[in-house]
């Protein structure tokens, strides 16, 4: 996502990152995930999966924000994201009541 200026709370807010998991052999190459990923993290791979389709692959590792859009839009249950272990700023810890 492109900002026109740095958000004022950029130093306080943790941007939750995600990790993409691709089950390549389930993919049928529809490219929905590649098209609609808001961070453009995916491209269609040049490799073939076992069925002869091009599955997606992650090209911008570390930029997935775990929005789960790919997971929701994939008709094949072939891709999903989970929260990554580390957040990217040392700001307010998640779940802090203050």
């Amino acid at each position, binding site marked *: 996502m492109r900002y026109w200026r740095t958000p004022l709370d950029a130093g306080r807010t943790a941007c939750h990152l995600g990790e993409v*998991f691709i*089950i390549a*052999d*389930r993919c*049928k*190459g*529809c*490219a*929905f995930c590649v*098209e*609609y990923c808001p961070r453009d993290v995916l491209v269609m791979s040049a490799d073939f999966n*076992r069925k002869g*389709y091009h599955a997606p692959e992650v090209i911008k590792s570390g930029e997935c924000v775990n929005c789960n*859009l790919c*997971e*929701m*839009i*994939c*008709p*094949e*249950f072939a891709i*999903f994201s*989970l929260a990554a272990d580390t957040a990217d700023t040392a700001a307010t810890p998640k779940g802090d009541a203050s």
Partner: protein
Amino acid sequence: MTTEKVQTRTDFPAQPPEFPEHPSTPYLRMDRIPHVWCPGCGIGTVVKCFATALENKEVDLDKASVVSGIGCSGRAAGYLKLDGFHTTHGRAIPFATGLKLGRPELLVTVFSGDGDLSGIGGNHFIHAARRNMDLLVILINNFIYGMTGGQNAPTTPLSAKSSTMPFGNFEPPFNLPHLAASCGASYVARWTCLHIRRLTWAMEEAIERKGFRLIEVIAPCPTLYARLNKLGTGLDGLRFYHDNAEIRHGADTRELDIDFQKGIVCGRFVDEDKPTFSERMNDHYNHVLGEKYRPMPPEGGWLHE
């Protein structure tokens, strides 16, 4: 020269062993994945949204049943890990009626396609809506009879080509939200399979409501409808929805016709609190019969020692 028998691979691993599970795994029959739907078909997306809605609403999966008819969308019952019934063409709604009336505590969802539910199943559709039967109906509309090879459907837009209308359709199609609303449905919404979040929220809303709840989901059919009408791939279909779908909650259902490759109005159109068939039945019998009335218990009419 020896000829080798062609081997068919049926041992695709569900996923590489070191991977975490796909989050929808508890809701799917993993022994049947990958499913039969074509590349670029939107039905799988709708099933995913439904699984997510079930999860978010913490539905008791033991009490949830899914009933499908015949057709591509009708295969959905076979992939969801609920009590699933793959019934005859067009008869998913009355079958689901029997399930619901035989065991009132069930959450019964009908998952089927436009041809199945509004063509052969049209009569059952309008009567269940009229009665406000407590069913959640997810109708996936791809404007065609897909599984049988691309025949004209009651929802095929004017001028669209199909295998039985090779020169273009000249029959006016149904406006399904209008049909359901005018018959008495208490919740009517339409989304496309691109609107994954709003579709999931609509399903979650509908799960919490009661009565005849219709969610029409527009989905691409790359193999038949799109191919016969030169509309490209499933992705081209989603791009079309992106550019031509308009969200108008509360729109008058008379204005929801879909013309060929024109705008698609989406949103929640009807959301009313109306008594369901069962509520009316119980209230009425209580009123008329008083203490003599013995309703069927929520656990159903199964008699045992």
